[in-house]
């Protein structure tokens, strides 16, 4: 039946499901570039600092980017379908504030997570409704709701801080969820894992499976490549986009709960500026801002690269904003280098 397609059997009217596998294409894949970057980051950092490869240090480093990374998974899907959500950090703030008040009212840790996720869901549904019902550009809508959500937090909270949380809730954010377990073999052990990183790992697998192996995933790629053609093929474009905004809200609410548990206090400026960091993660992960191109593996690798670059520089006492210079430059360099090669090739071919 499924005989491999050879050069002979392939006449010009055969349409292949995918282009034939070639080593050059495989090596030039975005994910391969990211793996090389990741290896470079680890090697350079461990040469410069001897505390970089400490298991506990690395575990703590993951908790610094896991909350953002959880939102980045949903943001990747949104950017894939040509949308964007700049209100995520403001949703984190609103969810975190709701959690703070619920905690003050004596709610249980599980309920606090439900509150965070519920607030996120409502905010996401509001975004999605504006974007799909009124047919508005998502970048403008979410700049507006970003101001609105963050503004509501400021109105309600003023310059107060919420600092009273039940201890079991704080433990979830501040202790390792999986403890370090050593075996008799020195290099075989279970590393300590914070809850946020564990959730990120599980969600990354789920998102990867849904995006790359299910019909829904293929539909998202179809919307991103050509929304009009997707609509004419019977894909419920607006319903899926609405759902993605809700998903982005839910992830932001969840991240808000994890962040609040880790920090143990919140102010109205919590998670400020996160939206741009998250978009950076997604774009470095190879998701095209023009839509239709991207993979969860790429986003996962980009999250690790950015997280480890930041961590490596911070243990060498490089201030956060200088790290941002390198990350900004890295983003532009990684995106431009393939394009420069493309230009050069086109230029040479044109001669």
């Amino acid at each position, binding site marked *: 039946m499924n005989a491999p397609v050879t050069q002979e059997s392939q006449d010009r009217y055969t349409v292949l499901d995918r282009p034939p596998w070639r080593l050059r294409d495989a090596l030039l894949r975005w994910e391969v570039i990211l793996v090389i970057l990741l290896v470079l980051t680890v090697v350079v950092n461990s040469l410069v600092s001897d505390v970089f490869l400490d298991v506990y240090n690395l575990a703590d480093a993951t908790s610094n980017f896991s909350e953002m990374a959880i939102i980045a998974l949903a943001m990747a899907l949104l950017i894939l379908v040509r949308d*964007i959500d*700049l209100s995520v950090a403001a949703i984190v703030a609103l969810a975190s504030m709701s959690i703070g008040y619920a905690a003050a009212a004596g709610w249980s840790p599980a309920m606090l997570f439900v509150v965070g996720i519920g607030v996120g869901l409502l905010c996401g549904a509001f975004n999605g409704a*504006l974007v799909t019902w*009124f*047919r*508005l*550009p998502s*970048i*403008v*809508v979410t*700049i*507006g*709701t*970003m*101001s*609105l*959500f*963050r*503004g*509501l937090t*400021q*109105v309600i909270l*003023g310059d107060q801080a919420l600092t009273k949380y039940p201890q079991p809730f704080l433990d979830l954010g501040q202790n390792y969820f999986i403890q370090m377990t050593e075996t008799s073999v020195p290099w075989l052990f279970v590393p300590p894992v914070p809850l946020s990183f564990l959730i990120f790992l599980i969600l990354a697998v789920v998102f990867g499976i849904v995006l790359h192996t299910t019909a829904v995933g293929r539909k998202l790629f179809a919307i991103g490549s050509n929304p009009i053609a997707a609509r004419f093929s019977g894909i419920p474009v607006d319903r899926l986009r609405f759902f993605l905004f809700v998903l982005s809200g839910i992830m932001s609410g969840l991240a808000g709960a994890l962040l609040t548990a880790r920090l143990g206090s919140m102010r*109205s400026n919590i998670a*400020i*500026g996160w939206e*741009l960091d998250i*978009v*950076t993660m997604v*774009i470095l992960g190879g998701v095209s*801002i*023009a839509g239709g191109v991207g993979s969860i593996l790429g986003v996962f690798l980009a999250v690790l690269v950015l997280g480890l670059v930041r961590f490596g520089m911070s243990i060498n006492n490089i*201030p956060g*904003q*200088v*790290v*941002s*210079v390198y*990350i*900004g*430059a890295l*983003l*532009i360099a990684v*995106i*431009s280098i393939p*394009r*420069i090669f493309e*230009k050069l090739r086109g230029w040479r071919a044109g001669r």
Partner: protein
Amino acid sequence: MTALLKSRELILALILAIAVAAIGAYDSVFVQWQNISDMLTETSVLFMMALAQMVVILTRGIDLSVAANLALSGFVAALVSQYYPDVPLVLMIATGVAVGLLLGMINGGLIAILGIPPIVVTLGTLAVYRGMIIILAGGDQVNASEMGVEFQAFPKQAFLGLTTPIWIAIGVTILFWLFLNLTRTGRGFYAVGGNPVAARYCGISQGWQEFLAYSIAGAVSGLCGYLWVARYGVAYSEIASGYELTVIAACVIGGVSIGGGVGTVAGTVLGALFLGIVNTALPVLQISPFWQMAIAGAVILAAVVINARAERRPDKLILPEARRLGRTSRAMRRAGT
């Protein structure tokens, strides 16, 4: 008459006039000349930044790096004032503008030549430009006592009853109006954003228009960087943090379409004025300043919903004449000729 009533700028101006009158009736302090002058001085930077951002958005782009550019070029101008106090003031301002222009040209080059999406480029340069301040200064800031006296006095001087930032904003606004309405290059921004393919067939270079748009945004950010630093008397890495979104908000309220090709100088100026009035009115109405952001958000959402309804015309116009011609022919058709 109906066309005049449908004009978005006029409706926005009416809303603003009613709001000012209502707040003035509540407390006459609001409409006293001193308060209006303060408000305009405070908003002058936003006027110019929003106009420059409008040009970028007209070409279907976006520039998220303007606030970082403002901070960096303002910082460089402050450094010049600190270390070379004998340099004439004009040159210090020129330094700020030149640094801003250079940073804008970097954005423009990456976008126009390499074809990287504007949001990606300016997201990257946003981080780079802001971080450069830390690298330049090693984490220090330039305080009022370290800047030159003349350097700081200039934005506080008044001339014919208006402060210098207001005069500069008026001048820049007129230049933008002349440039966008009366020059071929200016109309080119509308052409490239309204229909890139048609613009290409008309011989308008998309790359050149984009490069120009980001360069203009950069130069204006540089000028505003000087005004900001000199007016508030401090230069460090966090000034105007998050201001890029306020600037975009002013454009959106003023009716600039994020899809490109739609936007007017008058609308954008009114959009910026709206935000300026909200900020000054809150203390007068004794409303907590914490409301500022929430109100701005609600206004942006309302504006974008209204604009989306108004924008459902089939045509986007490149030439102002074409609009008038279209109106006449439609009127003639309606009259049954």
